[in-house]
């Protein structure tokens, strides 16, 4: 019994860590309607600035804390609101999620490059007057860092509770989330309210960052990202609405984790992988079984119908002359590059080209699931990993030849995708994205380290298929596979499946009313997408000669989505552009002489534009330049003029 109490007390500081971040997520969601994955990035900004001021420049604790948490953090929140989220208020929840995802990818890199630099980030110090002071509770001892977290968390929950209960601004913040337009009609300045919301939640992120940083040996953005994803479980427990419940959820999570590590034999494999997996498994299960969670996000702006529909895609409005000209020049350039690669290019550039082609295949999976089915899946890299590991293991264990095994690997990934889709599709929207994220992290911590999956400490090697061992023939093989998969995707989009998916995106209610079974068609889309990702992952492993788990970590899943969505999520061309970009941008940055980390900044910030240009920035730019070109063409070569005035369509019944 005393053991039990000791473990419970041990779990409380960690529980408060989860709770603090979860409270931040709930607060942001409640007051801005954004499920703010960038909360982790905001916390990292504050932690880094505090570290630089306090540790490197020797500012006094209080001064550094006040400047970072009370001044800079709210300003950062204001900046995010004014530059980004204010313009997204009427965007869909999923568009807001993607924008915050872009920030999560970009901001820590900016901070690392500009603020922290190359030098070490060890020796993070907390804000308690004596970090190492000890406080005794019967048998267990809490140190100053932990005490600071417990006290701050309780204080924050108390103050926010008072704010929402007694201050008029609390009611206004909720009204702006419900319908900014309605709120403005009622005479409230929605801009000012949302600025206040963002400053408040950013202040909380800053506080969390400064408090949590000393728990880790050094400052690293990954720690904050992983912690953020873990804390989503506590936020989900609170149904994204209740701040006190977020506290309870966080505490439960921390205590259960402490109990597990207390009672499980410390050296066993289960203990080592179960403890880090727990929050993600909890998130996964909560998303599936916690009642009331799904209804939390299904509110819809009653005035959303006043938005104009998106412009038709460039390919539709482009005249035949320009379409042909684009196609011809595309073929000419493509053939030219390929000829150069096959004759003159060095092995180095052939490698880069192969990476571009292989990743284009992986990215086509995002074209299917996001571009066609309209779902943002954050575990495409994991599906690629499933394909890669299955391919490698089947070749090694059964001794099959590589080419047919690639198809088997894709099939395994497709089956995993279909199985995951069954529970995930009940969720939809941002909860589907969070669920796939939880799955990706669970795969990383629980399955990927196992011997029968990735080979554990000794990654499984895969030979190249006979006849394609050299780099040039292998590149040709990859190009052929890419061409086949592209045609496959185009046929699906043109076919019945593609039409049904378009119908479901347009109005699920109406699609069901004519007899479309949404579950069946979406499971199919998930399976196809996972299969394509698995095929690409398998080829990636064959290219490298080995299936390494680090190539398929959850962060890549996030980055892939950010990349494809930024460029052009809905077309095959977009996926190929993304593949080329992924392989080429680091090289270009190297040529210019800046750190290749800037690619994360570039694409991360690009994703922010998703909400304003859901068709992708490339498509948007193409649209603009098309208009300019068409103006100069003689009239007979121009395309049809885009349609006249719109009426609202679709939406929930």
């Amino acid at each position: 019994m005393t053991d039990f109490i000791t473990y419970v007390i041990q779990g409380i500081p960690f529980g408060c860590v989860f709770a603090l971040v979860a409270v931040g997520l709930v607060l942001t969601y409640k007051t801005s309607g954004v499920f703010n994955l960038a909360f982790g990035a905001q916390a990292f900004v504050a932690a880094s600035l505090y570290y630089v001021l306090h540790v490197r420049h020797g500012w006094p604790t209080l001064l550094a804390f006040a400047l970072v948490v009370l001044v800079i953090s709210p300003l950062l929140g204001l900046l995010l609101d004014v530059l980004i989220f204010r313009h997204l208020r009427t965007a869909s929840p999923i568009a807001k999620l993607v924008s915050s995802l872009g920030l999560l990818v970009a901001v820590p890199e900016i901070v690392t490059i500009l603020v922290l630099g190359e030098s070490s980030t060890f020796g993070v110090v907390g804000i308690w007057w004596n970090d190492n002071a000890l406080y005794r509770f019967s048998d267990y001892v809490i140190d100053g860092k932990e005490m600071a977290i417990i006290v701050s968390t309780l204080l924050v929950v108390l103050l926010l509770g008072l704010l929402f209960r007694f201050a008029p601004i609390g009611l206004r913040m909720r009204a702006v989330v419900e319908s900014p337009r309605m709120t403005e009609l009622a005479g409230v300045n929605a801009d000012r309210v949302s600025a206040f919301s963002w400053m408040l939640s950013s202040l909380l992120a800053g506080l969390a960052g400064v408090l949590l940083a000393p728990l880790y040996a050094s400052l690293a953005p990954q720690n904050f990202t992983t912690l953020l994803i873990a804390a989503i479980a506590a936020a989900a427990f609170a149904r994204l609405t209740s701040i006190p419940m977020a506290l309870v959820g966080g505490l439960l999570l921390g205590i259960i984790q402490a109990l597990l590590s207390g009672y499980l034999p410390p050296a066993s494999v289960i203990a080592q992988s179960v403890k880090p997996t727990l929050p993600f498994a909890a998130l996964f299960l909560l998303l599936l079984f916690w009642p009331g969670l799904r209804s939390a996000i299904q509110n819809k702006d009653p005035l959303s119908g006043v938005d104009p529909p998106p412009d038709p895609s460039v390919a539709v409005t482009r005249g035949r002359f320009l379409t042909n000209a684009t196609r011809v020049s595309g073929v000419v350039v493509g053939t030219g590059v390929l000829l150069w690669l096959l004759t003159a290019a060095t092995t180095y550039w052939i490698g880069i080209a192969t990476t571009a082609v292989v990743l284009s295949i992986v990215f086509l999976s995002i074209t299917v699931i996001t571009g066609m089915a309209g779902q943002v899946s954050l575990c495409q890299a994991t599906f690629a990993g499933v394909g890669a590991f299955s391919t490698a293991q089947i070749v090694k264990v059964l001794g099959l030849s590589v080419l047919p095994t690639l198809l088997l690997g894709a099939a395994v990934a497709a089956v995993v995708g279909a199985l995951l889709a069954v529970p995930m599709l009940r969720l939809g929207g941002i909860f589907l994205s969070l669920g796939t994220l939880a799955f990706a992290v669970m795969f990383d911590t629980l399955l990927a380290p196992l011997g029968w999956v990735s080979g554990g400490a000794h990654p499984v090697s895969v030979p190249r298929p006979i006849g394609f061992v050299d780099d040039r023939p292998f590149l040709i093989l990859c190009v052929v596979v890419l061409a086949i998969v592209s045609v496959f995707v185009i046929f699906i989009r043109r076919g019945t499946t593609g039409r049904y998916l378009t119908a479901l995106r347009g109005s699920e209610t109406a699609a069901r009313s004519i007899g479309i079974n949404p579950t069946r068609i979406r499971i199919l889309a998930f399976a196809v997408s996972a299969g394509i990702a698995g095929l690409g992952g398998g080829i990636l492993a064959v290219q490298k000669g080995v299936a390494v788990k680090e190539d398929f970590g959850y962060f890549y899943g996030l980055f892939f989505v950010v990349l494809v969505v930024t460029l052009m999520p809905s077309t095959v061309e977009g996926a190929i552009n993304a593949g080329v970009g992924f392989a080429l941008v680091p090289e270009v940055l190297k040529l210019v002489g800046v750190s290749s980390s800037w690619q994360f900044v570039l694409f991360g910030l690009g994703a922010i534009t998703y909400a304003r240009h859901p068709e992708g920035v490339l498509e948007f730019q193409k649209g603009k330049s098309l208009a300019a070109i068409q103006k100069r063409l003689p009239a007979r070569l121009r395309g049809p003029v885009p349609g006249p005035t719109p009426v609202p369509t679709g939406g929930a019944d």
Partner: protein
Amino acid sequence: MSLLDAVNITKRFAGITALDAVSMQVESGESVGLIGPNGAGKTTFFNCLLGMLRPDAGSVTFDERDLTRAPVYRRARAGIGRTFQRIELFAGMSVRDHLLVAERCRLGTGRFWKDILNLAAPSGDEKARVLATLELLRLDDVADAPIESLSLGRGRLVEVGRALMTEPKLLLLDEPSSGLDASETAALADTLRAVQSERGTAVLLVEHDVEFVRTFARRLYVLDFGTLIATGATAAVLGSAEVRKAYLGETV
């Protein structure tokens, strides 16, 4: 046995009884109206018939099949088509594609392997049937226009056409005249009568426009606060004192 037999449908929302044991029968080829003041439960009743809401009690039998627990898409395939009070169209699709999707869905021939082999293009037969419906609804001049470019009135016709492509035995129309002017409403009524005489489709109509109801429906059901307060031939029901009091706001 009636085409549609809904028995004692009851639906409560958080303690409020939206529908209290409402029963309704519709025969093949019949036109029936469902009227009542705002908030009477008309749309809730529609949603219970189509499975968009699960009733707390009661049963729905259609075409001699028990559909009480069937999902929406299965009821649609059994032959219940509907339009929506707040228009629900497929953004980014042409008018023709709206009908083609519904036609393909009715046939159930959209197999995935056909997509992969590029065999999913609409057949001549499908195209002809879509064209016939477009002509019936006088939508053929906008067949290839993007749906966003249509007026509200024609958008409603596209909804009707989409529902008709599934060859419903019963068509549920949820306030088809809302947002239309008088001439558009009259044209819609004419089109519906044409459809009915040509295809023998039964129509259940929820409508506020009393003139529309009077000319279109043979029989009426009147809902008020979730209970049926009257039913019978249109003229008799519209003439009854209780209905005039509840619905038309007249004091007798």
